[in-house]
């Protein structure tokens, strides 16, 4: 339990950074402040309702208010949300059930293509009927369908993987994940289902007349680009809310217990009456489902999908989020997704821009002994391209200094906090 004054400090910091973000919506520092407060809300213990209220105020008031000036904020948080849902799904498979899955982006692809094919003219290539399926119920219907198709694919990929563990399972899932991408790449012949490497575009978005009406009402005008930014922001927040709720329920249910049991000791779990087959498949299917629904939302948001969006790097990025946050920890997965996304699309890019500015201005760093003229900095030096290297370094550092993640699974907290006793004394 955290003392009350810390919560008060977090609330004050939330108010200050939120206000600063509204005043300077394009500046990076207030944004980092806001995200820092969200991190704090996730990592502090106790005072559930106050923390929830602070996070909600930031997410539903300060960020949207600043976002109307700078839609990039919506884009950033929406991306974070999409990755957070996937991190939560992968957390079930890898973190809770202990099944190392390196092909997780495949389920995201399945979800994305489920809506992309029917939400564009693509479906007309191989079936009769009028496409795209525009109009309000279709997108939501197909999002639900994406959950089912992803869960089914998860089960299918899980089946051959059932007898494998650890490294072997990782290799098989890595291969199966690539199979999905290669299929998407090549299913333009003989029947054009996925449109191959060109990808599918444009993809329909659900109509948002109601939101535009509301925006006109509060004096924001009816710019559809802003409307859709807000729409996807709210949609992703709502889905994340549901996903977190489902995760928390699962974690405490017999499913969650069974997952953790097979992770900890398969033989003991089997002796306790847990079916390995069923439990592993449930983990794969549940994890895949979360990814599938976000895939559908992603395709509508981007208006475009292509096999290039679902590479191995994508799977590894999500795994990095889970490991960074803390395997098996729900709050950890959220924090990991936020941190990695932020690093990817904000910090590295800003740093690149910063270096470009320095280079162009010919700034000379003079420390007396050494001096460096930034005009001489090679064009090749661009942090945004070092994503993989930086992930690698982060993961190595995490493994050395904090192997159970930023926010360890609550089951491990006792162990970390209390001194270990010798387990073999009589």
């Amino acid at each position, binding site marked *: 339990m955290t003392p009350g004054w810390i919560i008060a400090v977090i609330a004050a910091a939330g108010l200050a950074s939120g206000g600063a973000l509204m005043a300077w919506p394009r500046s990076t520092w207030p944004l980092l402040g806001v995200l820092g407060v969200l991190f704090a809300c996730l990592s502090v213990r106790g005072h559930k309702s106050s923390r929830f209220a602070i996070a909600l105020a930031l997410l539903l008031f300060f960020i949207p208010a600043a976002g109307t000036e700078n839609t990039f904020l919506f884009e950033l948080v929406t991306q974070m949300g999409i990755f957070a849902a996937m991190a939560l799904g992968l957390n079930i498979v890898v973190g809770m059930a202990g099944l190392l899955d390196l092909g997780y982006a495949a389920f995201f692809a399945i979800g994305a293509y489920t809506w992309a094919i029917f939400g564009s003219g693509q479906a007309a290539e191989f079936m009769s009927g009028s496409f795209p399926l525009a109009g309000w119920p279709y997108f939501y219907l197909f999002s639900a369908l994406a959950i089912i198709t992803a869960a089914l694919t998860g089960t299918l990929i899980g089946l051959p993987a059932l007898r494998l563990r650890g490294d072997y399972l990782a290799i098989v899932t890595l291969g199966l994940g690539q199979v999905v991408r290669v299929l998407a790449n090549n299913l333009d012949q003989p029947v054009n289902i996925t449109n191959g490497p060109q990808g599918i575009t444009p993809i329909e978005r659900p109509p948002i007349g109601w939101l535009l009406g509301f925006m006109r009402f509060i004096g924001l005008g009816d710019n559809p680009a802003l409307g859709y930014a807000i729409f996807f922001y709210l949609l992703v927040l709502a889905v994340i809310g549901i996903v977190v709720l489902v995760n928390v329920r699962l974690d405490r249910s017999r499913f969650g217990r069974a997952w953790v*049991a097979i992770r900890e000791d398969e033989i003991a*779990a089997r*002796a306790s009456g*847990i*079916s390995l087959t069923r439990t592993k498949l449930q983990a794969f299917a549940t994890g895949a489902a979360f990814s599938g629904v976000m895939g559908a939302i992603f395709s509508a948001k981007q208006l475009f999908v292509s096999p290039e969006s679902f590479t191995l790097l994508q799977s590894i990025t999500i795994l990095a989020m889970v490991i960074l946050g803390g395997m098996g920890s729900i709050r950890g997965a959220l924090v990991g997704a936020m941190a990695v996304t932020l690093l990817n699309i904000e910090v590295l890019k800003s740093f690149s821009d910063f270096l470009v500015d320095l280079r162009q201005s010919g700034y000379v760093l003079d420390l007396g002994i050494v001096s460096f003229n930034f005009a001489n900095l090679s064009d090749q030096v661009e942090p945004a391209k070092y994503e993989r290297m930086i992930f690698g370094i982060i993961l190595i550092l995490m493994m050395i200094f904090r192997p159970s993640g930023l926010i360890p699974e609550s*089951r491990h907290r*006792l*162990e970390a906090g209390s001194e270990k006793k010798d387990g073999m004394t*009589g």
Partner: protein
Amino acid sequence: MLELRDVHACYGHIHALKGVTIHVQEGEIVTLIGSNGAGKSTTLRCISGLLAPRSGEILWRGQPIHGLKPFEVAALGIGHSPEGRRIFPRLSVEENLEIGAYLERDAAVIARRKTDVFSLFPRLAERRKQDGGTLSGGEQQMLAIGRALMQNPSLLLLDEPTLGLAPVLVENLFETLQTLHRAGKTILLVEQNAWHALHIAQRAYVLQTGSITHQGIAKEIADDPEVKQAYLGGD
């Protein structure tokens, strides 16, 4: 209640069980003694479905159960506390017990069984929020037995529950087994600690390199000169 007829089992090329025939009656404590590698644990693994026998029959209340999956065997009321305790070290005592009751969905029943286990092993109640891995060896063994009891099994398969325990704890544990027996549990006990096991059991089997060499009333087995020589340290 339980009957094994001519059960053979192999690990790869190693022929671990060479025609084991044993039976357990309702309400008995039956012990299976023998040296390392005799096939005691293998016998239990065959019964609970962790290992499929190569040939032979395993009957539970007259019905064949060989070839069933472990969770199906568990659902029939056979609880297996496997060799080496195998508690979940990173889960709390309570979570360990809850996993034991995995097949039971009724929360009230699970709570009642938990109370029963805690009254049998008050030490576990004191440590209910503690991680399994932080318990002492004796407590871990209590937890392993408690976890198997959470299934509310009619037959309890115990694999070397006294392994690595101090003598005083061994005494306590055997007393607890007798308490369970008086409460009506049937127990098939695999032990290296032959003297104690023969003391509390009604009947006994001696297993040697995969075959039964002696069987009968526990007291008589304990008096058998050959058994005495081999397992009870002579006299």
